[in-house]
């Protein structure tokens, strides 16, 4: 009776071994480390760099516990937090701008565990500290801006084609043209549909005999602009996050127009917000190349109407304060190659009004230099200052010479960043300081620990041997839950830790059901073996039903929850699954081990099974 087939024991044993292996990494403390990754896609991290890093550390007498190269970059383990900071400062200085050197914490679990994918649980921001931002891209702004551009473009098109119109203006996201007669309107319609295939045109006759032509963006063009705006914003964000030196940043699109940025472990949250939230504008201004003026400026007397900057090579450059063009006149900037010389170049496209201004300015200033500046938070940086070779009309500008492919890429990116397609706004922010994160871990751990201890003592007392078995099943449940959370690398949050505690409290329900059933069967005269059998069998249906309803709630939370609620739901759902396995399958296995071998069992220790017909003193204990 109550024998358990071998295959079930094998399943349990395999589950236990896997559970223990994947739970193990959580017991090793984190060690401070420095992580080096590349800030530009063109820069590769290889063993040569690893050698350089190790040499640098040795040269500076910084002790380290090993350096390794993986998919992300180079990780150097260090003995303590002070050396970590020293190493970071040293490497930042030695490696230069092409690499990001970030502080990180690495698990000290042995390599063989990591090689089978056994990693510690992934802690959420509320446990490790850091910043979470939800940014919304202002799509209406992006579309309005596009409509503005089309308004000017259409106006110049009308002039160019000599079509008579009485007015052009933007109404919402549409451009509206007014005509005195229908003939001109038809001509305009034909001209616009050839020049701007992205616009859909609609004729409208307003009161008073006025003919109107309404031009709006086609839906597919709108989607393209929206998607482009989000992508562009994400590129910019990535670029800025690199500047922060965060070890494991997450930048993801959420929904159609939102971007999530998570920066774990960031200490200086004010700076993070500052860098992410800054708005950059692009300005094109003329360079003052008068040697006397430069000399004067170097001596601290900047001539009136000029600003002194240094360019990317560190050379001083004097720029006139008058702005020729601003970034919003730039529709696009792409890196590429000069079609004649084949050297790397940046191709810039200007809108109609920008093109006109640019043509006039270049005509008058051939041979002079023009500076392109990126202005962020009142601080201007000269991206490049090319010489004007000839008059440039048509709005297509090529900047080339004295740059390599990577620089061309950077310049194009910076110019696009300046000409941000759509403004972004922080719509949700959660910042947790690092000390609070540590406290939260301790609190979550305490809730599980003390609750579990009291519960275990009570269950063992109340159900004696069966109680001890139930407690063992509960321990296995906890272990499997931690192992699965580690395996899936699901984010563990403080509500998630509360869910572990809650799950344990709920998981005992299955064992209580079983033990109560066994008692009841004994009460009505069943033999111990039959009582165990019936207890497990009859309780199973109930356990299944009750877990399904709890599961429904868990899945709904998972689907609709965000942030902390999601962290709760993940653990809750996984906990229901592990508790069904351990409370029924595993505990039955232990029962079979304890009681199953004896052919004739005269007693099962499930605490007192009191029988109403017997005096309490006569009852078995």
């Amino acid at each position, binding site marked *: 009776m109550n024998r358990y087939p071998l295959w079930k024991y094998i399943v349990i044993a395999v589950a236990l071994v896997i559970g223990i292996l994947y739970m193990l990494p959580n017991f090793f403390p984190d060690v401070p480390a420095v992580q080096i990754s590349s800030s530009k896609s063109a820069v590769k991290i290889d063993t040569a760099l690893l050698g350089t890093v190790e040499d640098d550390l040795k040269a500076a007498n910084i002790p380290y516990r090993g350096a390794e190269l993986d998919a992300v970059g180079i990780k150097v383990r260090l003995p303590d937090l002070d050396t970590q900071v020293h190493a970071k400062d040293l490497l930042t200085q030695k490696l230069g701008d092409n690499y990001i050197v970030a502080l990180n914490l690495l698990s000290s679990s042995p390599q063989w565990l990591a090689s089978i994918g056994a990693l510690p649980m992934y802690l959420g921001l509320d446990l490790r500290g850091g910043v979470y931002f939800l940014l919304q891209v202002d799509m209406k702004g992006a579309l309005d801006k596009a409509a503005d551009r089309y308004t000017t473009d259409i106006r110049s098109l009308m002039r160019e084609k000599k079509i008579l119109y009485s007015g052009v203006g933007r109404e919402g996201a549409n451009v509206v043209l007014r005509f005195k007669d229908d003939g001109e309107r038809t001509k305009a319609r034909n001209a616009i549909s050839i020049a701007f295939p992205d616009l859909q045109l609609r004729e409208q006759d307003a009161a008073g005999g006025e003919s109107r032509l309404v031009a709006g963006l086609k839906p597919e063009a709108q989607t393209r602009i929206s998607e482009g705006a989000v992508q562009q914003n994400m590129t910019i964000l990535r670029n800025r996050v690199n500047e922060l030196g965060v070890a494991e940043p997450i930048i993801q699109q959420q929904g159609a127009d939102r971007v999530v940025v998570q920066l774990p472990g960031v200490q200086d949250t004010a700076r993070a917000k500052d860098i992410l939230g800054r708005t950059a504008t692009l300005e094109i201004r003329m360079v003052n190349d008068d040697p006397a003026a430069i000399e004067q400026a170097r001596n601290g007397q900047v001539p009136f109407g000029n600003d002194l900057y240094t360019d990317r090579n560190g050379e001083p450059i004097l720029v006139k304060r008058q702005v020729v063009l601003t970034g919003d006149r730039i529709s696009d900037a792409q890196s590429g190659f000069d079609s004649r010389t084949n050297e790397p170049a940046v191709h810039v496209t200007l809108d109609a009004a920008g093109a006109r201004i640019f043509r006039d300015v270049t005509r008058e200033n051939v041979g002079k230099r023009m500076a392109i500046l990126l202005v962020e938070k009142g601080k201007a940086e000269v991206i490049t200052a090319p010489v004007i070779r000839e008059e440039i009309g048509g709005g297509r500008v090529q900047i080339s010479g004295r740059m390599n492919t990577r620089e061309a890429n950077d310049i194009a990116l910076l110019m696009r960043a300046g000409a941000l397609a759509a403004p972004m706004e922080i719509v949700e922010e959660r910042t947790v300081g690092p000390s609070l994160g540590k406290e939260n871990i301790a*609190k979550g751990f305490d809730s599980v620990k003390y609750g579990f201890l009291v519960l275990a003592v009570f269950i063992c007392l*109340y159900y004696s041997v069966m109680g001890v078995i139930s407690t063992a099943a509960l321990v296995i449940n906890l272990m499997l839950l931690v192992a699965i959370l580690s395996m899936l690398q699901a984010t563990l949050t403080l509500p998630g830790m509360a869910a572990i505690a809650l799950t344990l409290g709920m998981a005992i329900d299955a064992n209580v059901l079983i033990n109560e059933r066994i008692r009841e069967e004994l009460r009505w005269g069943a033999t111990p073996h039959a009582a165990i059998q019936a207890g497990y069998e009859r309780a199973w249906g109930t356990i299944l039903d009750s877990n399904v309803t709890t599961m429904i709630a868990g899945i709904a939370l998972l689907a609709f929850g965000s942030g902390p609620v999601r962290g709760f739901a993940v653990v809750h759902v996984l906990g229901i699954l592990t508790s069904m396995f351990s409370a029924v399958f595993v505990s039955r296995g232990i029962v079979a081990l304890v009681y199953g071998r004896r052919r004739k069992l005269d007693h099962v220790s499930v605490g007192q099974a009191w029988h109403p017909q017997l005096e309490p003193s006569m009852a078995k204990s």
Partner: protein
Amino acid sequence: MEFFRISRDIPFMRHALVFNVISIITFVAAVVFLAIFGLNLGVDFRGGTVIEVNYGHAVDFGRVRSAVDKLNLGEFSVQSFGSSETALIRLPLKEGLSSAQLSEKVMGALKADDPSATQRRVEFVGPQVGKELYENGALALLLVSIGIVIYLALRFEWRFAVASIIANLHDVVIILGFFALFQWEFSLPVLAAVLAVLGYSVNESVVIADRIRENFRKMRKASVTHVIDSAITRTLSRTIITHGSTLLMVLSIFFFGGETLHHFSLALAIGICFGIYSSALVMASLVMWLGVSREDLVRSDRKRALTGDKVLP
């Protein structure tokens, strides 16, 4: 050890009316509290900014208030949070001022007033996101209810489904009533707790429903009332032990989990206590009044017997 030594089935259903009157009164009271006071919605749902500041020594709330007041940010509140060294500042949404600027402004003012102020946590939720979180929460509650009704209707019978969902939603309303009466802050974790309680209490209803079905099968001559009484009595021990165990863990979260989980565990605790009452007594009496009969349940059992499921004598 055994706590429950009940020799006869307790005639719960004789007092069904009393139980229902009690639950109607608590329910109405909860609705009245909700109508009068309303829920004290947290930043998650209403939008706004919360800043947790630690001073390392007892907070002088008057000074904190006057420092924030000078910034002219609208109606704000300052409270202690967890310990006397920590202050929690709640600020309303303000047009034209981003969260980054807002929290920096406040921290700047507090630091100027007392340099030992350190920022521990900032939460900002914009109006749109708050509205969405609120709507998603309501949608989740609705879907959980529908899902449970469908499952119970399939597994048992529509009367059980309707009775359980009424009994358990009445728990939810009572939890909300408590939050309205005491003006505890209703945040995202509290919503999670409410939904978890809903799933958990239905658990209880399922256990009793299971027993009622089994009793209908075994006690062929007994009246419906007797069958239900017996089902509740026999599961009473398990109900108390299970809920006691869960409550134990919840209390552990309440005492050790810190301020962040305070209201979360409170909602769970209230839900578990009322869950015992409502799922055992309210649900069972509703089932009785809806007119459950042996035929409704035993017929479905025959079908199961034909498909090979074991029916025990």
